[in-house]
């Protein structure tokens, strides 16, 4: 009896006028739906609906200021006929594969270095994260000036060290411009790989190394048979996330080359921007952006399956 009266007393104590309004929220499911509603509203209005609307746009001939009408797959077929679009597909794949591999290699090296004890470690870590923290568009601006053919540091070093009489016009040549884009992307992406792999390295139990050492495994063997298998799940997830981010990247290419020279360095997103916003051909632009969907869908699915398996 005393317990019950105690409970009643407590309930009365927070019993204001809106108590009746809040009472249904004591039911778990109702409370959950109320708590989730704002998030789902945002995602529905600004992600779900735009996605479906984008599918419709890609199947239409909508221009800025005009109503579009349904044209079926005409945009996709026309894209495939266009040499710029084909170049864009090649660029995006090249960009994604090379940049992701380089990010992984350098990120892994960085993580292994950072896993040692040394002085000034905190300062080094803070400094190494900077490219990942600051706005990409702004750091990419500095890279344009680094690559500048007349006043940039790269060409100054080339001349100064006697490698060549004149440095190349980095952003004016399709191949070199693509290399520059990849370099900037890798520079920006190394910290994320480094820090996440470092966290994985530090969570490998010390006993595993001790056991391996007792069994007479040398450093290389310990790395192959203890370290790698332990950090693999993290590496794979980080790798997949980076594939998604690089494949759909916009900023580095937009700021560094705007897809130039002569549309030779476009990736899907910058071409979609140029066609959809620049030329106002929204239907075609949407179809270019949506061309990313198949690859993204597969990678996202793999991420979801792997994350699901770990839970």
């Amino acid at each position, binding site marked *: 009896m005393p317990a019950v009266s*105690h409970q009643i007393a407590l*309930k009365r104590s927070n019993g204001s006028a809106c108590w009746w309004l*809040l009472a249904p*929220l004591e039911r*778990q499911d109702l409370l*959950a*739906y109320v*708590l*989730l509603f*704002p*998030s789902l509203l*945002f*995602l529905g209005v*600004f992600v779900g609906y*735009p*996605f479906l*609307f984008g599918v419709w*746009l890609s199947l239409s001939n909508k221009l800025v200021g005009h109503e579009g009408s349904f044209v079926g797959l005409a945009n996709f077929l026309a894209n495939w006929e266009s040499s710029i679009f084909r170049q864009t597909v090649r660029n995006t794949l090249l960009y994604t594969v090379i940049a992701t591999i380089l990010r992984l290699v350098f990120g892994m090296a960085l993580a292994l*270095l950072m896993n040692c004890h*040394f002085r000034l470690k905190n300062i*080094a*870590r803070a*400094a*190494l*994260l*900077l*490219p990942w*923290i600051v706005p990409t*568009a*702004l750091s990419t*601006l*500095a*890279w*344009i*000036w680094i690559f500048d053919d007349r*006043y940039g540091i790269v060409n100054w070093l080339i001349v100064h060290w006697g490698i060549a009489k004149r440095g190349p016009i980095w952003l004016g040549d399709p191949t070199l411009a693509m290399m520059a884009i990849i370099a900037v992307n890798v*520079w920006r992406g190394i*910290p*994320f790989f480094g*820090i996440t792999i470092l966290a*994985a390295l530090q969570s490998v139990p010390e006993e595993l190394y001790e056991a391996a050492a007792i069994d007479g495994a040398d450093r290389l063997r310990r790395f192959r048979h203890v370290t790698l298998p332990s950090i693999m799940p993290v590496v794979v997830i980080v790798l997949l996330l980076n594939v*998604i981010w690089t494949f*759909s990247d*916009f*900023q580095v290419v937009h*700021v560094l080359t705007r897809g130039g020279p002569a549309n030779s360095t476009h990736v899907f*997103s910058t071409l979609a*921007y140029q066609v*959809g916003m620049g030329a106002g051909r*929204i239907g075609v632009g*949407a179809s270019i*952006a*949506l061309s990313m*969907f198949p690859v*993204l869908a597969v990678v*996202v699915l793999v*991420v*979801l399956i792997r*994350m699901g398996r*770990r839970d």
Partner: protein
Amino acid sequence: MIDRGSRLTRVLTFHVPLWGFVLLTLFPFYWMLVTSLKPDRELYNVAMNPILLREPTLKHYRLLFEDTPFVRWTVNTMVVAVVSTGISLVCAVGAGYALARLRFRGASIIGLIIFTTYLIPHTLIFLPLAQVVHMLGLANSLWALILTYPTFLIPFCAWLLMGYFKTIPLELEECAMIDGASRLRAMWSIVLPLALPGVLSAGIFAFTLSWNEFIYALVFLSSPETKTIPIGVVSELIKGDVFYWGSLMAGALLGSVPVAIFYSFLVEHYVGGLTAGAVKG
């Protein structure tokens, strides 16, 4: 002899690559600083070593502050980042709590939907989203960003907070409820305070993510005075083929400094959040 040899090996295999990484990482920022302080006659002097700075000048900064709406861009960026982070945290605390601690029908599918939206890149939907923003009458207003940024902030924060909520023992809440506290009360005064470090991490993340966002701001805003720093610097200081290099680098540096300072105070939380988000998932 052996000692000296092994020290040399350590320098070559450890210190050289490590500090090489640091040098490469920091060089672009040094380059921004040096360029922003150089008078034009040094900037455009082929004979001079470009790393050096002889007669520093604040001329480029003056141009940035007097002839461009840079201050306005900073205020805009700040307002958008703070408000959208606030909205996102409120939503994400609710969503994270519900997904981590409540049992209801559709929990796993809703969790899956929220996680999947985190993986959807902006560039996939920016064109239709621009149309939606236009239809809602938000084009060219900061509201366009304040209301669309939560779409990528909420999934990330909710995901991160879910992890934090799961680490808080259920018994704590149950005890409070046995003592007569309502579920809302238990959530507010028991679970939430314990999850505050997580909320802080999520907040830092959300702030830097919205500070750095580029394509939505580029597409939704067109008049110079509504722009954010990254868009303003890139679009207003490059006129056709003319680059105002000194002021560009001044703007790039000043636009990077606030996030860098913000995060350097909270680097432990930041790394904690980064790894919690990316590793523990």
